[in-house]
C-alpha cells in the first residue's frame, strides 16, 4: 500500500529539517522517494499545518522482566483504579504506574512512541524479559543486559583476568541474552549487599572479591568500547539517592577516562549536601562537566508528583529505601549469583522538600545541558513517574510560563534552593525531536529509526499543533508503525507486533569452556539452556530480529 502524507511540517533533525513543509511517502513499511506521478496513491492524508516527526524512542523504560512483573503484582490497588477493557483492536489489562503489557504498548503508541528499551535485563531473567516485551504490542523493543554484579565477572576481575577475557564474556552474555547494550547498576554493590555490605563507594572494596566499583566500571566500559557496540555502557552509578552523590557522579565521569559512557537517571545522582537539610541540587556542577565531556550522554529520570513505584536492580539502595515505601511494602530479591532486584512503591509529594527539589534538579539538568543530542527524555519509568507523564514533561521543557506556574506550588524551601526560576530556556520542537527521536536512535545505533529519510522504517507521528504542548503530545492525530496506521486521534486502530533490536558482537569461543565449568560447579541451570536462541525469541511473537552492526575499535 502506497501512503502519502501531504504537506506536513517536518521536524527531522537527522536531515536538518526544522519545520519544513514536505510530503512523505510510505510503502511496505518504509519511507520511500516520491513515486512517479503515474503511480496510484492508495491512501492520502492531507496534514497541512500538522507537525510531523519520526516515532518517539524511549531509551530507558522498565517495561519487561521480573522486576517489572513483581511491581505489577505488588500494586493491585493501583491497577484497580485504572482498568482497561479490551476492544476490537486492543487487548485489555490495567494501567497507571506499571501497566500490563498490552496497555503499555498501546499507551506508548497513543503518545507517538514506537520503540522502547528495557534498560535492566538480568541475564538469568532474559527469557522472561523478552517474553513480556513480546506481549507489548506496536512498539519495537530491545534490552540492555545487566552486568557488573555477577559472580563470574567479579571472580574474573578479582583474579586479575585479562581484559580480553572479560570482553569475550561481555559479548557472550549479550548474545546469550539477545541484548542491544550493556548496563551496570551499582557496580559490585548488588553483590556486596549479598555479603551484608550496606554501602559501596566508587573506590570502596567489595568485602569478598576485593575489587572496587571503579575497576568494574572501567573494565565493562572498555569491553563495550572494544566490542564496538553502538550504545555506550549504560551506567547507574554508586550511591544512588544519597546526598553528596554529585561528587560520585563527577568521579564516575572522570573514571572512564574519555571513553563513551551513558549515565542514566542522572537526576537521582545529582544531589549535593549543602544547606540546613543537607540536601541540595548538584545539577549545575554536573551539567557543566557534561557540557565539557563529549564522551558522556545521559538521560534524566525526571520525577513527577504522585504515586509511582520504583523498580531497580539496586538491592542495596532499595533495601535502604524500604522505610519510605508508600504503600508500605517492598520486595527485595537476590538473584542467581547474577544480580538482584528491589521494588519500592513511592509517593512523590510537591509539598515535601526533598521531592520538590528532586523535581527541580531534573528540570535543571534538562535546561542546563546544552546539547540535546546527548540528553534524553526519561522519567526512568516507573521510577520517577509513569511514562504517561511525558507530554506533561515536554510542556515543562517547552513552556517557561507553565514551568514557573508549577514551580510556584512547590515546597517553598525547595523553590528557594533551586535556580530553576532563573532558567529561561525553552526547548523548541526541533530540540524535542532530537531528544526523543534522532538522538536516542543514534545512541542506540538504530540507523533506520528516529528519522524520516528515504529507507527509514515508516514510524511516523503526526501532531496537531497546539499551544498547549501537553495536549499536543498526548494525542497525536496519526501514528504509523512500519507504515501501518496504528493510532488515529487517540484511538488504537491496529496492534501489529514490533521487532526486537539487538547486537551480535563476535567473541573468542574459548570463554564458553570456562563458563561451562563455572555453570556446572555453581549454577542451577545448564549453559546451553541459559542461552536464549533466535528461534525461541522469535517464537514469542516478535516479527523480526533487527541486528545492528558493531564496530570494534
Amino acid at each position, binding site marked *: 500500500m502506497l501512503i502519502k502524507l501531504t504537506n506536513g511540517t517536518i521536524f527531522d533533525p537527522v536531515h536538518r529539517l526544522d519545520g519544513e513543509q514536505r510530503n512523505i511517502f510510505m510503502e511496505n513499511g518504509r519511507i520511500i522517494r516520491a513515486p512517479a506521478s503515474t503511480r496510484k496513491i492508495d491512501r492520502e492524508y492531507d496534514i497541512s499545518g500538522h507537525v510531523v516527526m519520526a516515532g518517539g524512542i524511549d531509551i530507558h523504560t522498565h517495561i519487561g522482566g521480573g522486576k517489572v512483573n513483581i511491581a505489577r503484582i505488588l500494586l*493491585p490497588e493501583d491497577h*484497580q483504579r485504572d482498568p482497561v477493557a479490551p476492544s476490537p483492536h486492543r487487548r485489555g489489562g490495567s494501567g497507571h504506574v506499571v501497566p500490563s503489557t498490552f496497555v503499555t504498548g498501546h499507551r506508548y503508541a497513543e503518545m507517538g512512541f514506537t520503540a522502547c528499551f528495557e534498560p535492566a535485563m538480568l541475564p538469568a531473567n532474559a527469557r522472561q524479559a523478552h517474553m513480556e516485551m513480546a506481549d507489548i504490542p506496536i512498539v519495537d523493543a530491545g534490552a540492555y543486559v545487566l552486568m557488573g554484579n555477577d559472580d563470574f565477572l567479579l571472580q574474573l576481575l578479582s583474579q586479575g583476568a585479562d581484559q580480553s577475557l572479560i570482553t569475550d564474556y561481555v559479548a557472550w552474555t549479550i548474545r546469550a541474552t539477545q541484548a542491544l547494550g550493556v548496563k551496570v547498576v551499582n557496580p559490585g554493590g548488588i553483590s556486596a549487599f549479598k555479603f551484608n555490605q550496606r554501602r559501596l563507594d566508587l573506590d570502596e572494596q567489595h568485602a569478598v572479591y576485593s575489587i572496587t566499583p571503579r575497576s568494574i566500571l572501567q573494565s565493562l566500559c572498555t569491553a563495550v568500547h572494544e566490542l564496538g557496540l553502538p550504545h555506550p555502557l549504560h551506567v547507574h552509578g554508586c550511591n544512588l539517592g544519597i546526598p553528596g552523590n554529585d561528587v560520585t557522579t563527577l568521579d564516575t565521569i572522570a573514571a572512564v577516562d574519555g571513553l563513551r559512557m551513558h549515565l542514566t537517571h542522572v537526576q537521582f545522582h545529582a544531589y549535593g549536601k549543602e544547606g540546613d537539610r543537607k540536601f541540595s541540587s548538584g545539577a549545575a556542577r554536573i551539567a557543566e562537566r557534561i557540557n565539557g565531556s563529549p564522551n558522556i550522554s545521559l538521560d534524566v529520570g525526571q520525577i513527577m508528583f504522585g504515586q509511582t513505584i520504583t523498580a531497580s536492580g539496586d538491592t542495596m539502595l532499595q533495601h535502604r529505601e524500604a522505610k519510605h515505601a508508600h504503600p508500605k511494602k517492598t520486595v527485595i530479591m537476590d538473584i542467581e549469583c547474577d544480580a538482584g532486584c528491589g521494588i519500592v512503591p513511592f509517593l512523590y509529594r510537591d509539598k515535601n522538600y526533598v521531592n520538590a527539589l528532586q523535581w527541580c534538579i531534573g528540570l535543571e539538568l534538562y535546561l542546563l545541558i546544552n546539547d540535546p543530542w546527548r540528553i534524553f527524555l526519561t522519567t526512568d519509568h516507573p521510577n520517577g513517574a509513569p511514562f504517561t507523564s511525558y507530554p506533561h514533561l515536554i510542556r515543562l521543557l517547552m513552556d517557561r510560563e507553565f514551568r514557573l506556574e508549577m514551580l510556584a506550588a512547590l515546597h517553598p524551601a525547595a523553590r528557594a534552593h533551586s535556580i530553576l526560576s532563573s532558567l529561561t530556556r525553552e526547548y523548541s520542537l526541533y530540540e524535542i525531536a532530537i531528544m526523543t527521536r534522532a538522538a536516542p536512535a543514534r545512541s542506540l545505533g538504530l540507523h533506520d529509526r528516529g528519522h524520516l529519510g528515504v529507507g527509514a522504517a515508516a514510524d511516523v507521528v503526526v501532531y496537531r499543533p497546539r499551544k498547549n504542548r501537553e495536549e499536543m503530545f498526548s494525542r497525536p492525530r496519526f501514528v504509523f508503525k512500519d507504515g501501518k496506521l496504528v493510532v488515529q486521534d487517540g484511538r488504537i486502530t491496529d496492534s501489529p507486533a514490533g521487532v526486537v533490536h539487538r547486537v551480535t558482537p563476535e567473541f573468542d569461543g574459548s570463554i564458553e569452556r570456562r563458563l561451562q565449568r563455572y555453570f556446572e560447579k555453581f549454577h542451577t541451570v545448564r549453559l546451553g539452556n541459559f542461552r536464549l536462541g533466535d528461534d525461541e525469541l522469535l517464537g514469542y511473537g516478535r516479527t523480526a530480529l533487527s541486528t545492528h552492526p558493531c564496530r570494534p575499535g
Partner: protein
Amino acid sequence: MTPLSLTLRRNPFARIDMSPLTPDRLAGLGRDAIARIMLACGRQRIRVSELFDIAGRDASLLRIRRATVQLFRVGFQMQSGSVEIAGNAGDNLGERIQGGEIRVRGDAGEWVGASMLGGNITVQGNVGDRAGAALPGQLIGMKGGLILVVGNAGDRVGERMRGGTIVTLGDTGSYLACRMRAGTIIAMGRTGPHIGIGMRRGTLVMGRKPAAMPTGFRSAGALKMEFLRLLFKQLGTVQTRLALFRSFGPEAIRMAGDLSVGGKGEILVLLNGSQGQTK
C-alpha cells in the same frame, strides 16, 4: 416521600453486583432512571427493573426485600443514607463504606465492611469470614465506623483492622483480630484458636475467657480498666443495642501482645461480663 424499595422478583442465577445501587448514587434519580440502571451478572448486564419490583421514591432510605446471598457488594463505597435489607446479603456487604447505615435482618456473607472507612453496619444474623478485614492487596482493613453482628461471625474478624469498632454478640471463628493495627473488637461469645496473631496495636475485648492464653501475649493480671467504662458508655450512645454494655464494670484481665512482632496490642477479658444476657 416513601422509602425506595426494591423487591427481588426471583432468585438470580448468578451473583449480582449491587454497587450501583446505594442511596447516594441513586439520589435525585427518578424511578425510570433507576429502572434502567444495568447490573453486572457474570457476563450479562441486567436492568434493575428486570430483577426488582420498584416502589417508593426516597432513595435516602433504600429497602431491599427478599434479598439473597447472590446480592454482592451491597452498599459499596456508600457515603450517606440508609439501606435496609430484608433477607440475606451476599459477600462484601458495605465494602469500603464511608458513611450512612446498613441493616440486614438475615445473614451476610464474607468480607462484611471490608476496608470500610466509616458508617454503621448491623447484621442480625450471622456473617462469614473476614468481617472488617483488609481487601486483597490492601494493607489495612476497616479504618472507621461500626460493625455489629448479633449472630456469629466467621474467621479472621478484623484482620489488619486499623480503626473503628466491631462488636460480635455471638461466637467468632479462628484468627480473631489477627494482624490488627488499631481499633476495637468486642467479641462476646466463644472464640476460635489463634487469637490476636500478629497483632500490633488495638484492643480486643472478650466476653469469655479464651480456651488458652493466646501465643505471643503476656498477662498483666486482673485490672480495673477505666477505659472500658468510657467505651461501653460511648457505644451505648450510638447503638441502643449496645447500651447493654453499660452493665459491665471495668474489671478485666489485660494481656499485651503480640510480642513476637513487638506488638502493643491488648486483649481485655471481661471478668463480670454477664455473658448470658448478651445474646
